[in-house]
């Protein structure tokens, strides 16, 4: 389950991989444009945002929670970062004006995300709000704040350096893909090799038992939501960089894709099960699907039907081959 996935979990992974392979082979045969380096690069670039969100979502879900606010937090972080980059900020107190470098703006975006996440974490651990409600509230609040911050207008023209973060390439691969790959590795280690990581699984498995085992349940959950927020902030920066524009309506409904990815990757929404690599698989499946359906020039209406059906199929196979996955 934790360091080495238990039989069940491993089966789940294998299934997800199988589903992915089937998809890839199918699409490669169906269209000659799918199996090309260029398109591979596209898929990578396109999933990097969802993957960035899904890493954080994995932490939260493994700990037995959920975060519906990632889409809105993404928008808010991107907008604030873009605003700072473009206009800097006046610090009335010392009457001075603060400019931001691209790097500075990125930091700002992440910090905004961390703050939103910390707010979620506090609402859940201190005030005992159900995660669904707490993050649903944040979904609404962060969206509203984004609108207020931007006045409903996109913030555009963010400059070369910043833009490179979204559309640049390094060793032939998209910059965002590198960034997210890095995050994947870091959090894979965090979840499998650190006490915090193992505590996530314990808390998700049985809060009471974890508490009696000396785990600071509140702290673990708080951290999970805060990190999830921070990663949403990073995602917001990536989106803004990629579009060279922070739009107030960015990230709407992204939470669903992200949760779907994590669950397709073998996580259980009742907590205690799931993994970062599972999330990677989930994102790949969804990403490849979106990309493939367009390549096959499927009509937009059918795309929705097929996408839904494939998600069902993928998870159904997974669960069918796992012991006791049914109960959730």
């Amino acid at each position: 389950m934790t360091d080495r996935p238990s039989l069940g979990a491993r089966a789940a992974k294998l299934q997800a991989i199988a589903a992915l392979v089937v998809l890839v082979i199918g699409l490669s045969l169906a269209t000659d444009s799918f199996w090309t380096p260029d398109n591979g690069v596209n898929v990578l670039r396109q999933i990097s945002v969802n993957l960035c969100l899904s890493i954080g979502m994995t932490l939260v879900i493994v700990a037995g929670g959920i975060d519906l606010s990632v889409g809105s937090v993404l928008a808010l972080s991107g907008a604030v970062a873009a605003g700072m980059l473009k206009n800097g900020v006046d610090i009335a107190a010392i009457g001075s004006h603060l400019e931001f470098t691209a790097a500075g703006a990125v930091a700002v975006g992440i910090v905004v995300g961390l703050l939103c996440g910390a707010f979620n974490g506090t609402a859940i651990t201190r005030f005992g709000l159900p995660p669904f409600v707490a993050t649903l509230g944040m979904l609404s609040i962060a969206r509203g704040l984004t609108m207020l911050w931007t006045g409903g207008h996109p913030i555009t023209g963010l400059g070369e350096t910043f833009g490179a973060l979204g559309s640049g390439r390094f060793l032939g691969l998209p910059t965002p893909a590198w960034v997210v790959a890095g995050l994947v590795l870091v959090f894979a280690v965090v979840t499998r090799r650190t006490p915090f990581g193992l505590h996530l699984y314990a808390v998700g498995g049985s809060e009471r038992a974890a508490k009696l085992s000396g785990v600071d349940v509140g702290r673990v959950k708080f951290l999970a939501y805060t990190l999830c927020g921070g990663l949403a902030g990073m995602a917001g920066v990536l989106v803004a960089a990629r579009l060279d524009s922070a739009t107030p309506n960015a990230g709407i409904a992204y939470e669903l894709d992200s949760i779907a990815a994590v669950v397709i990757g073998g996580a259980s929404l009742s907590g205690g099960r799931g993994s970062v690599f599972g999330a990677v698989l989930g994102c790949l499946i969804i990403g490849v699907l979106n990309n493939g359906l367009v390549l096959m020039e499927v009509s937009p209406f059918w795309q929705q039907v097929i996408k839904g059906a494939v998600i069902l199929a993928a998870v159904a196979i997974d669960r069918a081959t796992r012991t006791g996955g049914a109960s959730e």
Partner: protein
Amino acid sequence: AGCNQEDSADASTAKKPSDGKGRVAVVVSTLNNPWFVVLAETAKARAEELGHEAVIFDSQNDPAMEASHFDNLLAAGYDAVLLNATDADGSVAAVRKAKERGVPVFCIDREINADDAAVAQILSDNYAGCVELGQYFVETVGEEGKYVELLGLSGDNNTGNRSDGFHNVVDRFPGLEMVAQQTANFDRSKALEVTESILQSNPDIDAIFCGNDAMAMGAFQAVNTAGLADQIKVFGFDGAADVIDSIRAGKIVATAMQFPKTMARQAAEFADEWIKGRRDFVQKTPVAVELVTRDNIEDYAAYGSKE
């Protein structure tokens, strides 16, 4: 609670303007798209200039929520409604209801499919605009070639009208082949993603026609990243700020300038006149959509002509 029916009754009647000052509701389909923010804010501003109280209602693209807004604002005794409808058909019922209650509705930008419900409809001539755009498309792209079309929202009238207007021209040239048609929900990032994918199967296209400017920006970004900026011509619709800049910079070829500000002001002025007693309005006031290209770019600013 302190107030009973009577208070509120005469509270609302009290608002029935003797002094020609009233309360104007601006009901907008969504604020998740800057274009509508401009529309709504201009309408509000103009109404206030004319001395009225004005409030914006966001329908969030949901006809049901729009209907609720109508219920509420009728109960709250507003004197006029400036409506940017969510749904050409779905919005009709609400507008009729307002009419029954003697509250005038003025439609902006989005048409409703009834000419006896709203007092007046001030509309971008999306169809004509796209006919013009289509002609310029043929001029610049030529009579031979492959292109892609990005549609806005399924179910949105403007989406349909724009596409129809465009094809009305372009389909007359069998040499022009549409190799892909996808929806991108008037959304920049969706357009970027979709275009990236399309370019895989069709790297050899000559042009992309987009149902609005947000999508045009997304499409151009994909084209640009793919290093095909010189080969592929991108067309938009709206006249949004960054597209105007892009045309000036020679990135995007053309867009069709709608005049959201003009439409909004016009509507606010109609409402003002109604409140002051005018009743004779023509049902439809088409607001011409003007073709914006590199040649005439200097005459235009974001969402309108240079003042």
